[in-house]
């Protein structure tokens, strides 16, 4: 059975390395991007089972990336979860629902909790 594929999008290299190591340890295939542009470029050829998307990045924010993914018929149904340092307001949570963002993980996160949530989203 093919491994499930997770894309991590974050401008913090150390976080990417950490999450990559955690998820590869759980037998996921992991691809990475350091910003929104790179993410969208990679999505032209990759179809991850889940995108873990940092909210705040230089250039395009996670929200903007998510909007663009949802606007592209080829990739609009990809599963997305945000990674964020800040607490969303009720307005923000409504926006997440409208954008069909399945979950948001707050930094700093517990490693086991991250894995549990990823498993819940992709199996």
């Amino acid at each position, binding site marked *: 059975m093919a491994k499930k594929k997770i894309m991590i999008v974050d401008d913090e290299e150390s976080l990417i390395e950490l999450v990559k190591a955690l998820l590869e340890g759980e037998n996921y295939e992991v691809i990475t991007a350091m910003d929104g542009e790179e993410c969208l470029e990679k999505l032209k050829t990759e179809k991850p089972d889940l995108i873990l998307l940092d*909210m*705040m*990045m*230089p*250039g395009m*924010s996670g*929200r*903007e990336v998510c909007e663009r993914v949802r606007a592209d018929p080829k990739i609009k149904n990809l599963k997305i979860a945000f990674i*964020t*340092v*800040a*607490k*969303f*307001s*009720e*307005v*923000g949570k409504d*926006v*997440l629902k409208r954008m069909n963002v399945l979950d948001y993980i707050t930094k700093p996160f517990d490693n086991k909790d991250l894995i549990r949530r990823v498993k819940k989203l992709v199996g």
Partner: protein
Amino acid sequence: MARIDIKEGIKNNKIVVFVIPNKEYAARLEEIITALSKVYKSMCYVSLNKPYNVLINKLKKSKIDTEKFFFIDCITESVEGNAAKDHVFYVYSPRALTELSIMIKKVLDKAKIEITIFDSLSTLLIYEEIVNVIRFTQSLMTTLRTRGSGGIFTCLKEGISEDLIKDLNMFADKVITLD
């Protein structure tokens, strides 16, 4: 008298971003502060563009009770170098975001601040890249929320991107564009 949208915005929401047309900024800001001073007993004013000496005179001229305020002045120290007065704290530059964060937390905890006015996001954008402004603002909004405190963030309508507003909207209770 404060406009309905300012009063309603303050009354119903804890964390509000006011987007104000450039030429109306001074007048609308005064309305916002006047409305806040009728509701709150303990406020923090973070100024990135007006020194304390200028600010206090403006507030007094508008007959606003300045005894309710603690001030964080991010302008004066870079020019003159000032030790903290009783209700005034100094941060050496609007660029010093870490120091500013620490100072805001210190004042919030020391004075049991009910609401913080951040004047302004547009000034911060002069000194910092947009991603750092959003990160800082979101972090500050979280700090205020976890302490049960409110926050009013102002910015100029002209020169602020729609994407910035959309990103702030995720973490603020309301973004109100004044005309």
